[in-house]
């Protein structure tokens, strides 16, 4: 019998204060959130303005991180995941996110599913050859499927044993939210970059170095971005390999097994980071048809 190991309680993260640096014609702010380096570029002249924008951005990123984290025990995610089938009333921002998750589930014919996170109890993508036996994967499938939840905004009922995880959209959503918040304060050109998921605004072209996750030996890529967003899905470091067959970390929630021939990493450019991120994730879920899918979406994309 397969035994679930739930993550224990963790202390709320202690945030290192953001750092601010002056560059040629703009300021660069840096901080850590959502387990990745976050960067904010601001084409402003006053240091005091840059500083207050940076504080605003970091607080927003930390707020969303706190809200979405599976590792804290005082947020809605925790309450839902521990609701034991009882209805939970969710607040407005969460209503929007769950609506969005539902639309993504429908648009992807069930392949994008925020309840698929429990499959991680069977799969650990650590580069080893430890492919799970079919039985434990099979045993988890009754706990996967958006079709099993009841969503009548603002009430959400999650059957006992199921979990939701908004990690698939959280970071991109945080990028867009942060930029929107900054734009309310300042019209200057800005770039929000949370670990390579990027949204730029304003009348200015930026050169941004992003890490190439597919090829860790190659130097970072320099991208020019004007207005709009970029997001990358995929992680070349997370896989299993057995008998010469590579098992990528993208799981099909309908089978519990990795999507075959999934691309290692897909980057998409779109109007918002959330849209770019979802398109990139959908493309990964298409397996070998990723490129065909992206062509049909009429977007700029890069497949590694």
């Amino acid at each position, binding site marked *: 019998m397969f035994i679930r190991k739930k993550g224990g309680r963790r202390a709320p993260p202690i945030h290192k204060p953001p750092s601010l640096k002056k560059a040629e*014609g703009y300021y660069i702010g840096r901080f850590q959130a959502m387990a990745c380096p976050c960067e904010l570029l601001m*084409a*402003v*002249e006053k240091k005091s303005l840059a500083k207050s924008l940076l504080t605003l951005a970091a607080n927003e990123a930390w707020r969303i991180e706190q809200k979405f984290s599976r590792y804290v025990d005082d947020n809605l995610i925790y309450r839902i995941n521990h609701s034991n089938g009882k209805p939970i009333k969710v607040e407005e921002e969460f209503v*929007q*996110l769950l*609506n*969005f998750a539902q*639309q*993504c589930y429908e*648009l*992807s*014919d*069930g*392949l994008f599913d925020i309840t698929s996170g429990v499959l991680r109890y069977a799969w650990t993508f650590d580069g080893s050859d430890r492919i799970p036996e079919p039985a434990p994967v099979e045993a988890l499938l009754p706990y996967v499927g958006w079709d099993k939840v009841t969503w009548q905004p603002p009430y959400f009922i999650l059957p006992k044993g199921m979990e939701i995880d908004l990690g698939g959209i959280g970071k991109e*959503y945080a990028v*867009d*939210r942060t930029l*929107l918040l900054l734009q309310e304060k300042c*019209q*200057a050109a800005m770039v929000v970059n949370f670990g390579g998921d990027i949204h730029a605004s304003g*009348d*200015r*072209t*930026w050169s941004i170095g992003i890490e190439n996750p597919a090829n860790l030996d190659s130097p970072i890529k320099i991208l*020019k971005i004007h207005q709009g967003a970029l997001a990358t899905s995929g992680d070349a470091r997370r896989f299993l390999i057995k008998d010469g067959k590579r098992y990528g970390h993208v799981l*099909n929630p*309908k*089978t519990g097994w990795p*999507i*075959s021939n999934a691309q290692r990493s897909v980057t998409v450019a*779109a*109007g*918002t980071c*959330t*849209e770019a991120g*979802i*398109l990139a994730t*959908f493309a990964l*879920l*298409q*397996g070998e*048809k990723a490129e*065909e*899918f992206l062509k*049909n*979406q*009429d*977007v700029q994309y890069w497949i590694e």
Partner: protein
Amino acid sequence: MQLMNPKNIRGALTIATCSLLGLNSAVADEENWEIDSAVLYYSETDRVTAIEPVINLKRNFDDEKALNLKLVFDLLTGASATGATPSDQVQTFTRPSGNGSYTTSSGETPLDDTFKDTRAALSAQWEQPLGRDYKTSVGSNVSKEYDYFSLGINGSLSRYFNQRNTTLTAGLSYANDTIEPEGDIPLELASMAINTGQARFEEEFNATRRGGDESKTTADLLLGVTQVIDRQTLMQLNYSFGQSDGYLTDPFKILSVVGNDGRAVDYVYESRPDSRTKHSLYWQTKHHFNQDIVDLSYRYMWDDWDITSHTFDLRYRWKLGHKHYLEPHFRYYMQSNADFYQRFLLDGQPLPEHASADYRLGELTGITLGLKYGMTLPNDHDLSLRLEYYQQSGEANANNAPGILSQQELFPDVDAVIVQFSYSF
């Protein structure tokens, strides 16, 4: 394994994302018409007044394709300088149509008061990318006045280099203009027939006319480079070559033939060469500060009529918060005269092959001072008001002016006020 249908779900996804982020859906907006409307009022002191409504429609399609349609009306009234010199006496001129005459009192610049016209012009432009590195644009325009018709076509091709930081553009345009003035085309340098009650006036007038219409063609070639200098600076350099052939004369302009006393003994219709080759170099730099934008340009033009001109233009967009801006404008223009330009002809001297007293071909300087105020309304429509003052001065005075002409204002200043109101939605 059942994968989802790789159909296009982008539109639905964009709407879902915008709803999540509380944004207006961008997909629906992209394919709407953008409408710019403006009314321009131009008034020269004691001379021409023009009212010009403009409507510009732009529609963006997918893949950076765009269609632009522009409709312009010009309603012109007032009087324009004929080219004749003022005098200490009353002068009588025959109207260009031959129907009647008008007089100019002493000391006044002779103006043709029959200047009244309505012009309608329509242009359409289509642009689209060709692959990743090229962009093309094609268009045509048609313009109609009471006695004038113009038809033009144009096309251009741009190539991006250096990750779109450099753009090279080559463009060609061609226009054909036809003029059919009331009273026909005057014979070049023919003496104006004046109706002093003579029985044979109509015959005399007709003797100064040839053909009912004339036309000209204009071909222009443009070569340009646009370079992104840094994240805030854009620079553009263009060379253009223009060739006009055909009837380049203004059938409504005349010259005075003056005697030793400076008084006109005759008026002759002007005559210009039938070809003109123009070259111009244009440089423009735009720099974005954090909020403000400065736009500086200079044009140097030279042609085979011996006219050279310099134009300096400076605009500074000064942002006042998010929704308002003020934009001061300064423009300085100076040109040398055409080689056949003459303020007047001297009686008894042989007539030159070409001569014109049109002040626009003389030596002149013009200064424009303007201020524009723009704002974005709560509904995201843009509104702007532009006020400009223009002053044009000709040569100080002719040194060789004989007799009474030395006491006359041969190169009067032209002052004009321009008011433009624009609304975009």
